[in-house]
C-alpha cells in the first residue's frame, strides 16, 4: 500500500526470522537476572509499608550482625546537594527524611545469598511516624490536601495554586468562544483513567560493581544503557565515564525501563562491600509497588460541533498525578488529545499534581491514551446524537499535510486520511452484530521521536557486516536494522549481524523509546553503510586505477559506472574485504547526531464487543488495528507492535488499575489482581499496515511502537455504548462498573 507504489526492494518488507529468535525460544538468551559473576553478593531492599511517613530511625545493627551480610546502605550513604530531576531520582532511589509512597525504598542490604539478604532486610528496623496521605488526583489538587513536598512547583505554576500542583500549562489557538458560538451542539463531559503499569514480563534486574576508585560496571535489563549510566552517576556522585553499562536482553519495557530504580543501590552496596559485585532482582510485588506505572487522570472536555460533523472548537482541561514527583505526562496528553483534528479554535489546560504514589515512568505513548479516551469518547457521543457516521466525522475533520496541528506545529507528510479510508473499507466494518453486541471506533496519535544516536558498522574479512547500535532491541529492531543495512550493501540479510553494545563502545545514545530505534538507529546505520560503500568504491577504484567517482555500488559489488569508466568485472564485497588489510586497513562507517525527519503515526481501531447484561462482562469479539507505518521494514514485527499496543490498551480499558486501600497501600501488587489480559481473553488482533512513506527516512520509516495503545480505551467505551446503551467515563470498564451502569447505579 506504498503511497508512491513504485519502489521495489530486495529485502525491505520481507519477513525473515529475527536474529535473536533462536536464543529466545531455546532459553539461551541472557536476560537481566541471568547474569552472574564470581564472588557476587545479592541485594534486597527495605520498603516503606506506609503511603506517607516520617522516617524517625533506621537501625541496621541486627542485620549487620547476621553472618554473611556484607553491606547496608541508607540515604546517609548517598551524596547531598543534588537538584532538579537528579534530586528526584535520588530521593526515589532511597527515601530521605520521609517515605513518600507505599513501596518507597528506605534501605538496602547485600549478603552472600538471596535468602540471607531477604532475612537481613527483615531485620532492619525502621520507625515511622505516619503522616496524612493523598492518593486520588482530584483529592490531591484540593487546597487542604496533605502536602507532598513544599517548593516542588516550577516557574510555570501561578501564585496561589494548591500546593501539590507542580507544573501548569495553558496553550491553544483561535477564538474559542466564537468557535463554540458557531456550533450547533456543544457538549461537555468529565472522564477518569486509573494508573496502569507497563506490565513487562521481566522484572528489573541488575548486577553492579563499584570499586573504591570510583570505577564501576553494570549489567542491567534496560531500554537505555546511557541513561542508566548518567542517572546512576548523578545519584551516587560518580564520574560518568568511569561507569560502563552493558544492557541484557530485555523482556519488555514499554517505557518503564528508561529510568533507574534499584540500579544505584547495587553499586552503592558493592562499594561498601569492598567492590564485590551485587545482584538485585525485583519481585513482581516490588515492580508493581515501586516502578512504572503511568499517571492517573481526571479530565474535562468540551467540544462544539456543527450538524454536518465539523468541529468548531474544543477545550480540554486535564489533571494528572504521576506520584510523589513531578513528571505526569499531562503535556503529552494535551498535545495528542486533539491531534487528529483540524481545529479553528482549541484551548488546553494542564495540571501536574503530586500524590503519595510511585514516581510514574513513561508508558507507551505517555499521556496519549488518557487524552484519547476523553476526546474520542465525547466525539463518539456527539456523532450518535447528531446521527453522523463516526468514520465520516473523522474524515471531515482529519488533519492533512500542511495543516496546523492542535498543539502548534505544522504537519508534514502524514497518513491519517489513508488510515481512516482503510478502516472504512475493512470487512469488520460490515460484520453483522447480534444482541448485546456493539462496534466502536477511535483514532490515536503519537509524534515519534529521534534523539541522540550513534551507530558504527564494520565490514568483516569475509565481506559480512557487523553493526553496533546503542538502542536495545525490544520489538525486533535488530532484524529491521539488519534488513536495511543488507538492502543498502546488497548482501544477504543473514550476512549482517546487529549488536546492541555497551556504553564504552559508542557515543551517547538515548534509549529505545519514542518509537525511535528503527527510525533513528536505522537511519544512522544506513548512513554508516553508505560510508563503507564509498570506501569500498575507493578501494576498487584504486585497484583499477580509475577515479573513485567513476565507481558505483550495485548488488553487493563495486563496478565501473558506465562504459566510459573502464571495463572491469565487478569486485564483490567479499573480494574487497578479503584484501582490506593490504589496501588500507579496516573498512567501516560511523554516524552520529540527532537524525532529522521524524514521521508521526496515526492509527484507527475498530472493535466489536459483546456485553453480558447480567454480569457486565465485556468480551472482545473482533479487533482490527489500522495504522500508518511509513514503510514496514519487517511487517511481522510491525504487526506485533500493533497487536501488542492494542492488547495493552484493552487491558487498561477493561481491568487494569492500581487499587489503593484506605491507608494508601497498593492493594493489588500481583498479577492475580493487577489484571493484564490473558491470551484466552482475546481474539486474534487483525492488523492493516498503511504505508505513507516518511520522506525523512531513507526507507520511509515512521515509528510504530506507541500509537497502538491509544485508541483501544475510547474504542471499547464507544463499542459498549453501541452494544447496551450505557456510556462509561471512568476506566477500567470492569464488570462491576458496567453492571452498575446497566442497573442505573453508575
Amino acid at each position, binding site marked *: 500500500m506504498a503511497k508512491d507504489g513504485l519502489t521495489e526492494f530486495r529485502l525491505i518488507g520481507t519477513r525473515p526470522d529475527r536474529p535473536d529468535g533462536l536464543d529466545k525460544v531455546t532459553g539461551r538468551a541472557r536476560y537481566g537476572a541471568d547474569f552472574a559473576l564470581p564472588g557476587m553478593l545479592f541485594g534486597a531492599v527495605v520498603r516503606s509499608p506506609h503511603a506517607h511517613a516520617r522516617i524517625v530511625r533506621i537501625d541496621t545493627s541486627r542485620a549487620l550482625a547476621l553472618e554473611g551480610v556484607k553491606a547496608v546502605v541508607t540515604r546517609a550513604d548517598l551524596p547531598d546537594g543534588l537538584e532538579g530531576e537528579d534530586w528526584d531520582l535520588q530521593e526515589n532511589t532511597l527515601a530521605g527524611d520521609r517515605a513518600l509512597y507505599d513501596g518507597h525504598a528506605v534501605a538496602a542490604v547485600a549478603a552472600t545469598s538471596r535468602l540471607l539478604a531477604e532475612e537481613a532486610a527483615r531485620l532492619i528496623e525502621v520507625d515511622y511516624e505516619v503522616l496524612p496521605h493523598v492518593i486520588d488526583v482530584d483529592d490531591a489538587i484540593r487546597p487542604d490536601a496533605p502536602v507532598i513536598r513544599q517548593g516542588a512547583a516550577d516557574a510555570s505554576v501561578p501564585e496561589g495554586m494548591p500546593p501539590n500542583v507542580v507544573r501548569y500549562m495553558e496553550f491553544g489557538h483561535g477564538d474559542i468562544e466564537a468557535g463554540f458560538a458557531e456550533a450547533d451542539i456543544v457538549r461537555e463531559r468529565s472522564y477518569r483513567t486509573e494508573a496502569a503499569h507497563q506490565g513487562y514480563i521481566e522484572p528489573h534486574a541488575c548486577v553492579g560493581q563499584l570499586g573504591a576508585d570510583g570505577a564501576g560496571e553494570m549489567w542491567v535489563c534496560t531500554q537505555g544503557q546511557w541513561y542508566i549510566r548518567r542517572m546512576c552517576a548523578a545519584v551516587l556522585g560518580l564520574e560518568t565515564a568511569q561507569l560502563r553499562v552493558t544492557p541484557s536482553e530485555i523482556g519488555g519495557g514499554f517505557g518503564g525501563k528508561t529510568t533507574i530504580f534499584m540500579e544505584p543501590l547495587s553499586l552503592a552496596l558493592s562499594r561498601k562491600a569492598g567492590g564485590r559485585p551485587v545482584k538485585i532482582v525485583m519481585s513482581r510485588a516490588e515492580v508493581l509497588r515501586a516502578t512504572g506505572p503511568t499517571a492517573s487522570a481526571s479530565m474535562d472536555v468540551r467540544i462544539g460541533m456543527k450538524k454536518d460533523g465539523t468541529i468548531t472548537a474544543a477545550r480540554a482541561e486535564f489533571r494528572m498525578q504521576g506520584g510523589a514527583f513531578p513528571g505526569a505526562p499531562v503535556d503529552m496528553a494535551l498535545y495528542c488529545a486533539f491531534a487528529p483534528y483540524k481545529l479553528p479554535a482549541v484551548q488546553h489546560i494542564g495540571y501536574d499534581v503530586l500524590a503519595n504514589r510511585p514516581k510514574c515512568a513513561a508508558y507507551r505513548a505517555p499521556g496519549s491514551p488518557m487524552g484519547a479516551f476523553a476526546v474520542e469518547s465525547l466525539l463518539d457521543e456527539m456523532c450518535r446524537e447528531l446521527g453522523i457516521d463516526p468514520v465520516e466525522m473523522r474524515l471531515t475533520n482529519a488533519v492533512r499535510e500542511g495543516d496546523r496541528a492542535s498543539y502548534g506545529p505544522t504537519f508534514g507528510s502524514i497518513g491519517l486520511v489513508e488510515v481512516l479510508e482503510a478502516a472504512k473499507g475493512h470487512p469488520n466494518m460490515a460484520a453483522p452484530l447480534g444482541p448485546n453486541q456493539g462496534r466502536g471506533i477511535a483514532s490515536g496519535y503519537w509524534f515519534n521521536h529521534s534523539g541522540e544516536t550513534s551507530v558504527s558498522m564494520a565490514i568483516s574479512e569475509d565481506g559480512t557486516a557487523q553493526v553496533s547500535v546503542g538502542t536495545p532491541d525490544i520489538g525486533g529492531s535488530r532484524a529491521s536494522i539488519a534488513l536495511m543495512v543488507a538492502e543498502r550493501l546488497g548482501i544477504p540479510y543473514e550476512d549482517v549481524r546487529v549488536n546492541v553494545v555497551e556504553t564504552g563502545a559508542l557515543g551517547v545514545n538515548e534509549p529505545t523509546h519514542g518509537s525511535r530505534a528503527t527510525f533513528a538507529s536505522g537511519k544512522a546505520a544506513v548512513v554508516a553503510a553508505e560510508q563503507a560503500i564509498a570506501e569500498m568504491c575507493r578501494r576498487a577504484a584504486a585497484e583499477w586505477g580509475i577515479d573513485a567517482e567513476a565507481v558505483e555500488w550495485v548488488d553487493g559489488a563495486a563496478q565501473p559506472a558506465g562504459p566510459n569508466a573502464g571495463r572491469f568485472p565487478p569486485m564483490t564485497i567479499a573480494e574487497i574485504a578479503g584484501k582490506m588489510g593490504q589496501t588500507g586497513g579496516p573498512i567501516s562507517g560511523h554516524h552520529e547526531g540527532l537524525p532529522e525527519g521524524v514521521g508521526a503515526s496515526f492509527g484507527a481501531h475498530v472493535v466489536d464487543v459483546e456485553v453480558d447484561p447480567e454480569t*457486565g462482562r465485556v468480551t472482545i469479539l473482533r479487533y482490527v488495528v489500522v495504522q500508518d507505518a511509513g514503510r514496514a521494514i519487517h511487517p511481522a514485527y510491525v504487526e506485533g507492535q500493533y497487536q501488542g499496543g492494542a492488547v495493552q490498551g484493552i487491558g487498561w480499558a477493561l481491568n487494569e488499575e492500581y487499587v489503593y486501600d484506605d491507608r494508601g497501600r497498593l492493594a493489588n501488587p500481583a498479577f492475580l489482581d493487577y489484571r493484564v489480559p490473558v491470551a484466552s481473553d482475546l481474539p486474534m488482533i487483525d492488523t492493516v499496515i498503511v504505508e505513507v512513506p516518511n520522506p525523512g527516512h531513507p526507507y520511509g520509516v515512521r515509528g510504530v511502537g506507541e500509537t497502538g495503545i491509544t485508541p483501544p480505551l475510547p474504542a471499547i467505551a464507544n463499542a459498549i455504548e453501541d452494544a447496551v446503551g450505557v456510556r462509561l467515563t471512568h476506566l477500567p470498564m470492569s464488570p*462491576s462498573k458496567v453492571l452498575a451502569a446497566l442497573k442505573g447505579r453508575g
Partner: protein
Amino acid sequence: MRYHTPTTFAEAAGIAAAAQGVTRFLAGGTDVLVQMRAGMVLPDDLIDLKKIDGVDRIDPTPEGGWRIGVAVPGIALGAHEALRADWPGVVEGMELVGSTQIQGRATLVGNLCNGSPAADSVPGLVAAGAMAEITGPDGGRVVPVADIPAGPGRTTLQPGEVISALLLPPRGTAGGDAYLRFIPRTEMDIAVVGCAVNLRCDGDTVTEASVVLGAVAPTVVSVPAASAAIIGTALDDTALGTLAEAASAACRPIDDKRGTIAFRTEVAGVLAKRAARIAHARAKGENA
C-alpha cells in the same frame, strides 16, 4: 525450617501435634510454596504428605461413592472418566483452579484447607455432600466438608489433625451437579462469585437440590432457601427468579479490589440460575 516426609497419616499427625511453631502440610504446594516465596508464611515445620501410600489414588467405595487421596492433582481428577460422569460439577470446580502447570499439582484438600472463601472446588464438594476423613493424634473422625472452613485462612481442624482422604457419596440415579464462577478474565483468576448446584430429578421435576455459594461470605455458604425455591419445580422462570433472589439474599460479601458488594450479590443470583440449568440438564442425561 524442618522438612518432614512421613509415610503414614498417623506419623504425619504425630509430627504436627509435636510441632511448636508455624506448621504446614504440603500437598501440591501451589498455595504453600507461593506463600513462602512471598514471605507471607515461613513455616517452622513443613510436612510433605506425598510419601504416604495411596495418596495419589481415586478408589470406588463399597457404597458406590468415591474415595479421593489427598495428593490427587486436578489433572488426574479431570482424566478420571467414571468420577467425572458421577460428579461433573465437583470435577469442573477443581479443573478451574489455575493453569495446566498448577493442575499438575493442585489438590482438592489443599484447596479446602488453604481456607480461601473463593476456593473453586469447595462449593461443589459441599453441594455434593462430600465428607472429610481426618486423622488426628488421638485417632480418626469423619466430618462433612461443609464443616471444615472456619473463615478466611482458617479451618476447624485441630492442631495435629490432617485430612487423610475425601469421600464423595454415591451419585444415584437422575442426579446432576454443576459449578460456575465469575472472574473478570477468562482464566488465571480468582472467583469473584462462585456457585455450585447439585440436584436430583424425577422427570423434569427437581426432587432434591443443594445450592452453595463461594466468595460471597467468610466461608462457603449453603443456601437452603435457594434449594427450596427449585424443589418441586421444572426450573420455570418463576422458580429460577426465586432461586436467584434467595441466592442473592444469602450473600454477606465484602467490597474489595475484586468486586463490590452490589456486584457480588447480584451476580450470585445470576450464577445460581445458570448453574441450576446446567445441573438440571445433566440430571436428565443431556450433555451440558
